[in-house]
């Protein structure tokens, strides 16, 4: 028996420490990514918050913290109307999108058997391509001289192009639903896929029809995914109507970020 030469080599103090403390090994690996995010998110949110409490004195910045900006903003009916509107639009669009995407997720989870992966890729593919191009595409479809208007005129349904097509709440909702479908479909799909099929079979065995089975078993069990979908979308949704006042969105979003934080945490934690 020859003893291996390796055994003579002592482990360094660092490697002994890391061997003993698993959590430190993990943190060491996670550290670079975490630090980047720390700098990018914490600092910037902090600085934005700080800056929103500064005031403009002529051309120089007065750095004494004040809530003047906020009270001025809240005092102006336009701002509160904008916040309110943006919240309403975001909520409405989110609810509609989740509702539209649920059957799709259900379809893939329960009715697609052979090309599941392909369907999932197909449904999420548009999401990965440029946001700008997707919006651009909708402009082509819904624009004043866009596909839909010219088609409608060509068919003799309307005489004048409908300007309302592009600049209506419905259009906004439609475009948002299109853009964030993947965010709604994926979490819902995951929670549907996780449902133990024997639960549904048991319900069938106990005499529940298809509709009752869905409302009593499938839907309640998929709720975590629906909630996750709702929260994941509510964050990004808000950037749409906000083109006007960035700072308003900023404040709203800081609040939303907290919610989103929780939602993602719950999603990853599962």
């Amino acid at each position: 028996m020859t003893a291996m030469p390796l055994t003579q080599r002592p482990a360094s103090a660092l490697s002994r420490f890391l061997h003993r403390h698993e959590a430190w090994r993990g943190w060491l690996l996670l550290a670079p990514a975490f630090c980047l995010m720390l700098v990018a998110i914490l600092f910037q949110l902090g600085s934005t918050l700080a800056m929103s409490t500064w005031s403009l004195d002529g051309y120089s910045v007065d750095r004494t913290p004040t809530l003047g900006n906020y009270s001025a903003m809240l005092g102006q009916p336009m701002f509160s109307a904008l916040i309110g509107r943006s919240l309403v639009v975001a909520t409405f669009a989110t609810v509609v999108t989740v509702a539209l995407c649920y059957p799709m997720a259900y379809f893939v989870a329960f009715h697609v058997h052979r090309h599941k992966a392909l369907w999932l890729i197909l449904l999420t593919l548009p999401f990965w391509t440029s946001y700008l191009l997707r919006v651009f595409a909708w402009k082509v479809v819904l624009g004043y001289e866009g596909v839909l208007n010219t088609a409608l005129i060509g068919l003799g349904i309307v005489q004048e192009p409908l300007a309302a097509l592009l600049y209506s709440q419905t259009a906004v909702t439609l475009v948002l639903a299109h853009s964030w479908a993947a965010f709604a479909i994926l979490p819902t799909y995951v929670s549907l896929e996780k449902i133990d099929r024997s639960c549904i079979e048991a319900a069938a065995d106990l005499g529940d029809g298809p509709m009752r089975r869905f409302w009593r078993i499938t839907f309640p069990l998929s709720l975590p995914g629906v909630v996750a979908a709702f929260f994941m979308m509510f964050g990004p949704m808000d950037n749409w109507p906000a083109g006007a006042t960035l700072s308003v969105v900023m404040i709203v979003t800081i609040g939303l970020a907290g919610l989103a934080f929780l939602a993602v945490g719950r999603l990853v934690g599962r």
Partner: protein
Amino acid sequence: MARYTGFHRPNRPLALYAGAFAVFLYLPILFIPLFSFNAGVYVKFPLEGFTLAWYADLFQREPLQRAFWNSVQVAAVVSISSTVLAVPAAMAIARYRMPGKRAAVSFIMLPLVLPGLILGVALLTLLNGLGVRLSLVTVALGHMVICLPYAISVLLPRFIGFSRSLEEASADLCESTWWTFLRVTLPCNMPGVLACLLMTFTISFDEFFMAFFLSGTEPTLPMDIWSQLRFPQDFPSLLALSTLILVTSFLMVFASLKLGRIGLVQAKEVR
């Protein structure tokens, strides 16, 4: 007992809905390539004949080409650096018990749900405050913040599915941590890493908001598109360009998603 379980039976209305949904998802996007071959300047029906002129026109545009190369450079740097950061992070998340992990992971994943616009403005204020000059470097930094969560979420299922005992076997056979990574972890997870590279490249290449706020005098491609959206006479060329970008992006993301899955299947077999 498939007889009485409803979900095995095909559901015709639902299938129809799925078809309609797919159309809704792809139809608007398909109009872009359709009109990019249209001879008319205006985007409207009826089509006025087939032409490749708009594609040829792209080669005449100096600023556009510069913007293109800027985008490629940024995307290359971003994809490599965010993958390099994401691999150890995904490994740590997948396998170590550590206090505070959930909070840290939620935090890292935060840009996934924050609007790019907000992040862009916020990063801009930060960089301004620090007195950093805006350039492609700041764009790349901004893109890394966006891409990192995506990179991690592409890699994470890979590393969760990856049998840890393979690494343990390597350590057991006297290979150090670093060499274990090079000889076992990396080769076994190569499809996932490639998928991650492709995905982050595409995201960075297509990203607009960050680039809009963070770039100085050098625009990236999406910004060039944005600036030309105002001129109707440039619209068809823009459609041609968009078509090219869409096709490339689709191919890359498709390849990336496929690659990620292939790897997963293999990992399962090994277990």
